[in-house]
């Protein structure tokens, strides 16, 4: 309980910091920012405001490869606060539905219908099952994810949190923040967590 005032202070401090940097940015946009903004136009669901960056995107663009340790820790800390776990406390959904989410790459492009659910496109970057041979390698193989790490509740929480907001665990990862950015719904994230963590999932066979 002693932590609460400290936590409040930290949050207030970070909010102040965010305001200052946002203020500094809008006061003096870089030549590249001005040119970029003038070079895109709204199309479908993809509006020009998508070029605007939050703190995480701004820092990750500024330090594309190596970044100071304190910057990385700051990004992870601010994203950790943004992870929302399900209110009902259940982290595992249906792995069969999770497999569909992992296969689907649709969503959020200006050519996509925003009325349809987005996919997670996990296979674009990860190996997951033995059956699917068309997988990318930008992310690590997740084959036998639960089997190797143990089917514990702590690991379920990690998997759910990582899918929800990967930057909380690894600053400036290539992986999208599926929950935080509203790409996947809570139920979809539960289903993908099950794909990774259900002992009956083909990921763990």
């Amino acid at each position, binding site marked *: 309980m002693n932590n609460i005032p400290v936590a409040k202070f930290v949050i207030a401090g970070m909010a102040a910091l965010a305001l200052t940097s946002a203020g500094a940015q809008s006061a003096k946009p*870089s*030549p*590249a920012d001005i*040119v*970029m903004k*003038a*070079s*895109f*136009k*709204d*199309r479908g669901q*993809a*509006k*020009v405001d*998508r*070029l*605007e*960056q939050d703190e*995480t*995107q701004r820092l*990750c*663009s500024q330090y*594309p*490869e190596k970044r100071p340790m304190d910057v990385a820790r700051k990004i992870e800390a601010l994203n950790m606060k943004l992870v929302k776990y399900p209110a009902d406390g259940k982290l595992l959904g249906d792995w069969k539905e999770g497999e569909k989410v992992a*296969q*689907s*790459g*649709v969503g*959020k*492009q*200006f*050519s996509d219908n925003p009325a349809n659910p987005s996919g997670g*496109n996990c*296979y*674009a*970057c990860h*190996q997951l099952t033995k*059956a*699917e*041979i*068309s*997988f*990318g*390698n*930008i992310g690590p193989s997740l084959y036998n994810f639960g089997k190797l790490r143990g089917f514990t509740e702590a690991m379920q929480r990690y998997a759910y949190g990582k899918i929800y907001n990967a*930057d909380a665990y690894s600053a400036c990862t*290539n992986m*999208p*923040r599926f929950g935080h*950015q*509203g*790409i996947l719904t809570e139920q979809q994230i539960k289903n993908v967590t099950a794909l990774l963590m259900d002992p009956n999932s083909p990921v763990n066979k």
Partner: protein
Amino acid sequence: MQNIKRTILVAVVVVSSISAALLAPALSAQTSSGDAAVKEIEKYRQALGDGNPAELWEARGEDIWKQKRGPNKVSFEQCDIGMGPGKVKGAYAVLPRYFEDTDKVEDLESRLVTCMVMLQGYKYADAKKNHFGSPEHKSDIEALVAYITAESRGMKMNVSVNHPKEKEAFEIGKKMFFHRGGPHDFGCVTCHGADNTRIRLQDLPNLTKKEPAQRAYTSWPAYRVSQGELRSFQWRLFDCFRQQRFPELDFTSQGSIALTMYLAKNANGGTLSAPSIKR
């Protein structure tokens, strides 16, 4: 078989429209490992190279270049794309570059628009119209791009950043390359900043590194089998940003030219093989 069909279908959606019909024989030939599939796809790519329909665009582009066009009834033969009026040979190898008459850095596509406006008398909006063709509406700009780039085939990329505006374009393009945003936090760098990566089975060139940057840049423009169209470099950037979940990159916008400048400069020394043929 059902599973293979599904795999292929998804790959089509994700890797941006691989031709399923053409890929099916390659993928169904084996199912044991990803590496073997990659090799099969490589064979398929080599087989494609045997006949390149880009020649049809090149021939049409040459005709358009020589026709008297627009309200002023003037041919492109007085258009200076960097080597002097009407000179086409080698021009693509030094684009984008700074042009004094417009006081701007221009790439090939924007320079063609400039000539259509300044020389042939078209309205700017009309000159930019139909910049990406379809089977029903073939694009004159894509045909011109095919003709002009083919005239630099075998030459080495040699883009300059000596003029302050060229240097500025390069720096802006570099910043754009690393700019992460949108719902997926993607930037060009997400897919093109590391060695030996793939999306599904599609290889991704590391555009920050000399050799892969040269190989990638010098193979555009290209005839895309899956679309039945010849695609310009402007199209390549436009469609990358779509997949990046960004808004639409405006055709020949300053940002599009700046990013082209960054990528072209990184490809300096590479030998142009365009127009090539791709899946």
